[in-house]
């Protein structure tokens, strides 16, 4: 989905260079998520999804045109 959005605006040479699951325990380390919010997520989301709630994806791409040796 992310790569498709990148391609849709005209980038080329797309590569998904990293893709890893992010679970609730990892999200809890981010100070933007209050403890009560993480507790709410634990209650609201089935336990079998806690280890891979979302995915961290890294995409590289190139703007068309020009010459780039990278």
């Amino acid at each position: 989905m992310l790569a498709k959005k990148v391609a849709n605006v005209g980038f080329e040479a797309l590569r998904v260079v990293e893709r890893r699951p992010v679970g609730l325990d990892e999200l809890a380390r981010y100070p933007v998520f209050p403890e009560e919010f993480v507790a709410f997520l634990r209650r609201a989301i089935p336990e079998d999804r806690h280890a891979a709630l979302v995915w961290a994806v890294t995409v590289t791409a190139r703007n068309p045109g020009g010459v780039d040796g990278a």
Partner: protein
Amino acid sequence: MAYFTDAEARQIIRDTYTAVAPGSAEVAHQLYTAAELDGLPPGAVALALGVGHPVRHACLRPGEVVLDVGCGGGIDTLLAARLVGPSGRVIGLDMTPAMVERTREHARAAGLAWVEVREGLMEAIPLEDASVDVVVTNGVLNLSTRKSRALAEMRRVLRPGGRLALADLVVTEALPEDVLRSAPALAG
């Protein structure tokens, strides 16, 4: 389905990132190597809020001009500045004034005079067309209510042949609606 207007979303995000206190640096130690973190201002390390390491994948070279979209506390901005060196330039962009000031402070503390930090929106990047070699962004695109517009802006400011390295969170299975309606979910 949008649960927040653009204005509501921006206010929630600004409020969240203005108030955020530096964390335990666990996030930084998961994403970056000890060598990369060595010598960085502790505040930049403790405010690492990214989800990947796009700078690692950007293949930066001395002399390049880099834009860090949503620079936050500035850790990726500083790492990019080390790699492009004083012959290059790194522009950090953030819509939250408190984060802009933090990155400025961290760049000063690190002695990276070729870092410039601007306040602005990723959907209206305050730079000329084709003015940067590389765009990096880390855990920021998901904060936009207009992601395609933000990506189009990143492409607009890249020179022909310029490179994008983007890390972000992706949801592959629908989250409950009461989660999607919550402000912390939006801001994170």
